[in-house]
């Protein structure tokens, strides 16, 4: 098989799997559906790994080619094509690996569900769409993948479509994402106008010529074209990667089954925005204004969403807010031009966050779909593997030295400190404070779920036990990279030039290169040094607070809550974004809609003009009808009047 066939097979295998499992769900049955889809994803994973091997170890040159011409019109070629370089290869492996783990896990998680085949079809379809997104070599295909993953996310959040909360959440997710896509599409419009192409390579080549041009939007305000384009594109990323204020859909997306929370709403789809900015680094480098905007949005998300995570009681929602906060970290890294570090954190986060979600899912299976941590506690005795892997995931999340998250998060913080552009001061504060907060909510979750006295009722406790192997094996397989992947890949990926072919940073912005000296003695020395940094002690403070409150002094949480009731209420209300959107914006939109429908269409156009003119004609006709009474003397009388009038007019006018 040549490389192009392989690359074509990688997305098409899951698409095929989806069609078989979805359209022939009755013919293949439950086992058939999971075999077909798992084999498809496994095939994709193997082939992706092969491609990654070729890219990273055999120096496969960057591949950039068209698969077919989607449309040629008006001198513009719209193509479907692949760009395969280090960034693509990395993403392909991450996506297919996590997807494979989730597929296997699903056998255990969904085994009682009526929609078993449908679920497998959806996650196969998702894998296809995500691969199309990361492999794209142009904006058209990027947008296709972008919206396609959104649709599958919509279908999966609403997978249990009988639940009202689920179908509310999926509509919300889709519409909020569409706000982002609105910006994204305008950005694409600007790209075509100013660069004359939608092909990445051609657009990058045209970027220097566009730099310095301005666009006038409102009145006399002149925008740098590159700033305009980058901010528009980033608005798309804000929707997909759930950055404030377009983050509101992600916590609600937890209505979907847990496997997809792990796959779509933690590891892959929500990182599409991060990936997009990194992929388009040559463009974003051209606008420091846009990067500052990104930096500030990311910092806000990292800090404030982490805070909300502290007060959540639903185990999945804690992890969801944690995901928001970590996406904020990645965005911050993008904002300081540390694209490769953002991608590095994306990768480590994909493993440990998928792990945390799947561990939470394992708990949820054991407790028969109870998700409230206030009714858990002491679960480590019943499910040791789940507890151990949850610990590993949490340690990686808080950035404990040598765990994968340690390398990626520490480097983000270091990069922010070195950067020099508006917003850095706030971002520095946010990422430091975020470390403490992360440790606090992570260990709060660990203790509430797995340790301390149990708060389960007798019935739940009686059937709480470790999950079957289809669940625990993926946990273990995800735990391994959660520990090791940072240690082994940090130097080659970030400082060995492995991503030099895909991520372009201007020299003046290149904070990552300035960090290389820290790794002169290798990742081990860096890890050891990690124990004496302020970041470590911040994290330990968070752990200590969580340990004291949730393990030793459970009453204290309530006391603090009462003392800081206002703060707690703000956090519990999630700063009121939902209320604002629901009660103000949505309500206003619906008011406008019914106002226009009733006042504009039915009253003004139809009522006054259309039927009004019909009535006028009717009235006129009514009057005229009286003239035709049928009585001869009426007509005779009218004739005489008429004659008199004519004669009179002749006489008078003469």
């Amino acid at each position: 098989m040549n490389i192009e066939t392989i690359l074509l097979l990688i997305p098409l295998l899951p698409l095929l799997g989806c069609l078989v499992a979805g359209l022939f769900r009755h013919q293949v049955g439950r086992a058939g559906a999971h075999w077909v889809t798992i084999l498809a994803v496994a095939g994709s994973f193997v082939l992706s790994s092969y491609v990654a091997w070729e890219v990273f170890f055999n120096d496969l040159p960057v591949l950039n080619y068209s698969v077919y011409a989607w449309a040629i019109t008006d001198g513009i070629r719209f193509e479907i094509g692949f760009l395969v370089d280090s960034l693509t290869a990395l993403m392909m492996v991450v996506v297919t690996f996590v997807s494979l783990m989730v597929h296997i896990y699903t056998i255990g998680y969904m085994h009682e569900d009526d929609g078993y085949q449908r679920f497998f079809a959806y996650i196969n379809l998702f894998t296809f769409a995500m691969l199309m997104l990361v492999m794209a070599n142009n904006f058209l295909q990027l947008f296709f993948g972008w919206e396609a993953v959104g649709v599958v996310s919509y279908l999966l959040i609403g997978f249990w479509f009988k639940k009202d909360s689920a179908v509310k959440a999926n509509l919300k997710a889709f519409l909020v994402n569409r706000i982002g896509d609105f910006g994204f599409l305008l950005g694409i419009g600007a790209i075509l106008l100013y660069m004359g192409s939608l092909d990445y390579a051609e657009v990058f080549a045209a970027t220097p010529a566009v730099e310095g041009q301005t666009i006038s939007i409102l009145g006399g305000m002149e925008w740098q074209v590159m700033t305009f384009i980058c901010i528009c594109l980033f608005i798309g990323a804000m929707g997909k990667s759930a950055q404030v204020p377009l983050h509101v859909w992600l916590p609600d997306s937890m209505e979907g089954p847990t496997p997809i929370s792990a796959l779509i709403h933690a590891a892959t789809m929500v990182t599409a925005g991060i990936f997009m900015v990194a992929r388009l680094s040559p463009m974003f480098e051209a606008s420091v204004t846009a990067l500052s905007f990104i930096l500030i949005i990311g910092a806000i998300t990292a800090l404030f969403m982490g805070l909300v995570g502290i007060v959540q009681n639903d185990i999945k929602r804690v992890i969801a807010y944690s995901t928001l906060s970590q996406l904020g970290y990645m965005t911050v890294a993008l904002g300081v031009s540390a694209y490769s570090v953002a991608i590095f954190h994306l990768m480590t986060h994909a493993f440990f966050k998928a792990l945390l979600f799947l561990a939470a899912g394992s708990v949820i299976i054991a407790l028969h779909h109870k998700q409230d941590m206030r009714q858990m506690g002491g679960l480590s005795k019943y499910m040791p593997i789940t507890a151990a892997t949850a610990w590993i995931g949490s340690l990686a999340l808080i950035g404990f030295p040598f765990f994968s998250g340690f390398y990626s998060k520490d480097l983000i913080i270091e990069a922010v400190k070195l950067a020099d552009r508006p917003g850095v001061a706030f971002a520095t504060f946010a990422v430091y404070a975020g470390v403490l907060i992360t440790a606090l909510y992570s260990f709060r979750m660990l203790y509430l779920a797995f340790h301390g006295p149990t708060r389960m009722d007798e019935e739940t406790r009686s059937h709480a036990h470790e999950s079957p192997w289809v669940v625990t094996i993926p946990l273990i397989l995800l735990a391994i990279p959660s520990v090791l992947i940072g240690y082994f890949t940090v130097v080659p990926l970030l400082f060995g030039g492995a991503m030099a072919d895909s991520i372009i940073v201007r020299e003046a912005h290149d904070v990552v290169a300035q960090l290389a000296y820290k790794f002169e003695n290798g990742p081990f020395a860096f890890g050891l040094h990690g124990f004496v940094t302020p970041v470590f002690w911040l994290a330990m403070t968070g752990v200590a607070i969580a340990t004291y409150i949730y393990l030793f002094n459970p009453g204290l949480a309530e006391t603090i809550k009462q003392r800081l009731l206002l703060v707690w209420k703000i956090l519990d209300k999630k700063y009121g974004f939902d209320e604002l959107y629901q009660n103000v914006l949505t309500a206003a939109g619906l008011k406008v809609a019914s106002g226009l429908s009733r006042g504009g269409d039915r009253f003004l156009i139809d009522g006054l003009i259309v039927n009004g003119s019909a009535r006028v004609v009717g009235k006129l006709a009514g009057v005229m009808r009286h003239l035709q009474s049928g009585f001869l003397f009426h007509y005779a009388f009218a004739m005489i009047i008429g004659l008199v009038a004519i004669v009179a007019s002749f006489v008078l006018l003469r």
Partner: protein
Amino acid sequence: MFDWPLLSLLIWIPIVGAVLLAAIGNRMPHLVRPLALATALLAFVLSLVVYAGFDASTSAMQFQEKAVWIAAFDIHYHLGIDGLSLPLILLTTLIGVLVIIGGWTITDRAHLYMGAFLVLQGLMVGMFAALDALLFYVFFEAMLVPMFLIIGIWGGPNRIYATIKFFLFTFFGSVFMLIALIWMYLQGGSFAILDLHQLPISLSAQIWIFLAFLIAFAVKVPMWPVHTWLPDAHVEAPTGGSVVLAAVMLKIGGYGLIRFSLPIVPDAAAELDWLVIGLSLVAIAYIGFVALAQSDMKKLIAYSSISHMGFVTLGLFLTFAILRNTGELTGAGLGISGAMVQMISHGFISGAMFLAVGVLYDRVHSREISSYGGVANTMPWFAMFAVLFFMANSGLPGTSGFVGEFMVILAAFHANFWFAFVAALTLLLGAAYSLWLVKRVFYGEVANDNVAGLKDLGKREWIMLTVLAVLVLGVGVWPYPLLEMMEASVQNLVEHIVVSKLN
């Protein structure tokens, strides 16, 4: 067989079929449906033959047929097609087959019902193929009659109001067109459309003619604010009537603008493009909101149609604004091709959505959204199709609904940022009203006994929805053939309309 009078066959075969149906219908009712289907299929196959023989590399008229019709006024029976009319003819014959299949269960005077659709189809093809303005006008008006009958006889309870509104609106518009045509005949001595394309006309006259055409075609599109006949007509029309109305008849307005307004009076179009663009943007945004407020599924889809047709009129009239803004023509063809694709795609999607409403209406006899809820529980396959079509309606990439809107929005950005901005609002509004309907009708617990008793799709319904689903996805994944068909004609049109006809 390309030298046969294929276009005439496409027009007259369905009409002859209809006459046959009317003649034998009462005596041999069992033959009605097979005969109707055979006629429609034959026409469809012939249209494919035309497609096979079509040369996409030229913008010249092909398959021309010409015969003197009324010698005294130099009126000809003159037919011919280019890349702008062929896609619409293919759409017409395809939808023709689908409505016959869709009307399979009609029992009330089935032979007349199917006959009316066949006549309508023949007339519509004739209108798309006419190269003589008066011939066009005759088809344009004659078409009203079968549709009038379809709604008036097989329609809902309020059908009289709807038919009269429909008839008066469209008739009102077309009278102005006739006056314009006669005026031009007196000036240039010809009714041939291609002659009119070359006829020099002064600016003030052009503006009057432009407005006359605009009234005629705006009603058909329909553009805001002459759109209110459409929701009423749809609500009262039987399913097949709605399908043809939305899928094909609305395209006549767009086709008229391409064939008459732009090339015959380009200077007036350049002067007054702000009017059309403004009305189009109002349609996209305003009507998008109005759609959101509907409680009747057919009304919602009707408003959605108006909003989507806003992209057609917007795309068609971007050329001059692009030229003014950038000084170049790049993007002008994109807008016009986008408008064409939008017409075809809307044909598939709106047709499919009205069929879907028909599927529910046949079972429950209600079009109210509130009569449903949780339909996905009892009709999972149907729900799959419905989600696909409503997603396509909200412009999902990978479906045909995306292609035209995407192209028009990109082109609009070349003209003015705010055009693109308002047009792109459809991303939100389209998704909101489409998916909110899906949520209320298909998701949730089974709402009532009617829904609980629903049976999933029958074979006939499977066929119709599958055909449309394949087309919606096919055009979305590979619009290349469709665009290739029209490219030469679109480029020719753009070059033509930027040359002044004033001298």
